């Protein structure tokens, strides 16, 4: 099954996971690339996105699996035609065959920008580093069975904290993204919980790259 690497940026970050699937189904159709459909009572077009993303999050490393009916054009052609049929903010970077098995997806590099309108508080960088250097870091996680406490430290592979402008503190982290997976927003949730005086006015989140268990880039 061919796979597409795509990015979701700009105003497209407000498109939900289900809406994005629908958007791709239509884009394939507009591009003259007919998707195969599942057999059964309610046929569905065969597109699936590897890791659903929360609204408002940006990404340059999204994966889409799809399957085409009939003779398949070459991958470069698929990529070109899809991009002509997509909207600003959703761009296919590469189309390829024989992607790695999704079950081998393990880590995600993400970047959180914490915005402080009155300026980044003093010592914020050090205090955030200290927070993540502890033994455990319990954060509330809302799940299907209500709210549970979750220790996020075991799911953080590495973390860098830097003040990148007078009003922005940046967290770059490599975190688990499958079995178990950590929502990057839990990093800022920890700061808000344990360092309330460092609660930012706004948090921007971006997915940068994905890796397998050996920490080589996943495709």
């Amino acid at each position, binding site marked *: 099954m061919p796979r597409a690497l795509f990015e979701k940026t*700009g*105003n*497209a970050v*407000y*498109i*939900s996971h*289900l*809406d994005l699937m*629908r*958007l791709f*189904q*239509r*884009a*394939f*159709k*507009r591009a003259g690339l*007919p998707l195969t*459909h599942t057999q059964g009572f*309610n*046929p569905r*077009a065969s597109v699936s996105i590897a890791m659903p993303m929360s*609204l*408002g999050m940006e990404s340059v490393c999204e994966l889409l699996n799809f399957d085409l009916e009939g003779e398949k054009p070459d991958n470069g052609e698929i990529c070109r035609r899809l991009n002509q*049929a*997509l*909207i*600003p*903010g959703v761009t296919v970077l590469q189309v390829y065959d024989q992607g790695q098995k999704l079950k081998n997806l393990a880590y995600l590099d993400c970047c959180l920008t914490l915005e402080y309108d009155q300026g980044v508080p003093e010592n914020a960088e050090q205090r955030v580093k200290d927070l993540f250097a502890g033994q455990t870091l319990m954060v509330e996680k809302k799940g299907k069975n209500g709210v549970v406490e979750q220790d996020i430290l075991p799911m953080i592979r590495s973390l860098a904290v830097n003040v990148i402008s007078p009003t922005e503190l940046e967290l770059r982290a490599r975190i688990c993204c499958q079995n178990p997976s950590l929502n990057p927003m839990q990093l800022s949730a920890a700061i808000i919980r344990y360092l309330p005086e460092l609660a930012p*006015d*706004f948090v921007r989140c971006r997915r940068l790259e994905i890796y397998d268990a050996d920490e080589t880039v996943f495709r």
Partner: protein
Amino acid sequence: MTQRLQRILPSVQKPARYTGGEWGEVKKDFSDVRVRVAFCFPDTYEIGMSNVGMRILYGVMNQMEGVWCERVFAPWADMETAMRENHIPLWVLESQDPVSEFDMIAFTIGYEMAYSNVLNMLNLAGVPLHAADRRGLKNIVFAGGVCTFNPEPLAEFVDFFSLGEGEEVTVEIVSLYDRAKAEGWEKERFLKEVSRIPGVYVPSFYRHEYNADGTLARIVPLDGAPETVTKRIVEDLDKAYFPTKMIVPSTEIVHDRANLEAFRGCIRGCRFCQAGFSCRPVRKKSPEVLYRQAVETLEYSGNQEITVSSLSTSDYRGLKELTDLLLPYCWENHVNLSLPSLRADNFSRELMEKLQTVRKSGLTFAPEAGTQRLRDVINKNLTEDEILTTCARAFAGGWNNVKLYFMLGLPTETDEDVLGILELVYKVIQQWKENAVNKKRGLRVHVATAYFVPKPHTPFQWERQITPQEYLRRCKLLKSHFYSKSIVYDYHSPDLSRLEAVFARGDRRLASVLETAVASGARLDGWDECFDYGKWLEAFRACGVDPDFYTVRGYGEKEVLPWDPIDVGVSKRFLRLERKRAYDGKVTPDCRHGCAGCGANALLKEVACDA
């Protein structure tokens, strides 16, 4: 997009409806644009983007050189709160510019209960509400849509109304504005000139005088304004502008599919139906043109579903040719074809079965009244036999669900008619017992009753609305007789329909009520979770306006009606005649069995009425 907005978006429901950037959106270079139009739909994005009329007019204006038309929708309550807290004025989706910067602000209004949204949107835009307070040529507010066939409740707020179908007249209006702006006209001069365009009604050119009893005494046209303004129509729909490159929303909307119109007007003449009279005469698109537009629309949009709509699709003469052309294309391309508003005739039944190869859709009937006598009064020529035959066949084919829609409070209705609904429902249940192939899952009969709202330009435009108490009594009477577990009975609360009745036949004195209600926070009234009846009642009290004057009072046949200056093509004489026939229990056969002489064919010069 501003930083303020970026911070708000993740915290509101369905933020994708506020960003624009969809497939098919029209962007223009500012240096090529002389006239900017903010095209407002007074409801949410999901409703507005489902509106074919808005899509057509968006295309019409944007194909004009030098004109850029951009879309605006009513924000949902959470977004409105955030906008007010953060002082963000209402913006258009395409350029994200504030509405207050626009030359023209257009509204399309299809539902009376959207009036509060019109005012609220102007308020959110920071544009003065009253037409008289907008002095210059900038921010000219105009409106069209079915509701504007009685535009009076909005007369204080809207500079002019464009009546009827907009494909041609909108171009004339915007072109005139283009000239007015280039030549630096005063607003007065523009209004004067625009009122000369057929189909344009400028309310400030008419003075309303009242009798001591509150009824209208006369409507005086000022400065040579025409006595009546006749709605515009497009004669040849095959040649009419129709955009096949339409916007494809990036988020799910109510009617998330391609949509084509088979014909306009209706041959049926149900006496309560505003669209049935005000959209006449009947004009059709040919099957070939529809097929071409269907293919173009589907290919451009990538949609997997298409609807061919009209007021009564079974009455489309080209239905067989069209479906013969379209079905093979749809099968081949995994496209679902849906045909709403099919009648229960034989051809339609076969067609339905063909369409249902993939998915079974629902079976819905709108008998509107429970007895044949009352159905004759309202001229709804759907017989019990037709309903039962279709049900029997559907139950035999595996359906176990049927919806039946009725109205309560129709003219001449008695308790016997109300209980007639009951009898009909039990006959449907009997059909299921005799015909169902799979009884394990049981049967569901959804019965819904609505509160009858008399509408302008119909034979029932003079009728009284029954009181809300009486409506509820009839609902309860019916409910007390439904004992089968198969029946699910819903009745609409009377509050909204009562207000709808007030504004449908309202006059200019409702302006203060609207303004007061909106100032106290009324908006999104069509949405249960937002509708606050108390705010409206308080507004009526504060303004000294009695809602009963517009509802239970009824209008005299000799009375001057607020919408008298508006001519939709159907003569008042014909409406009176139809009203009399209703009271005599006489049906008027559909237009195909002989022209009933409504008068709408006089609107046609090039083609004949296709009834």
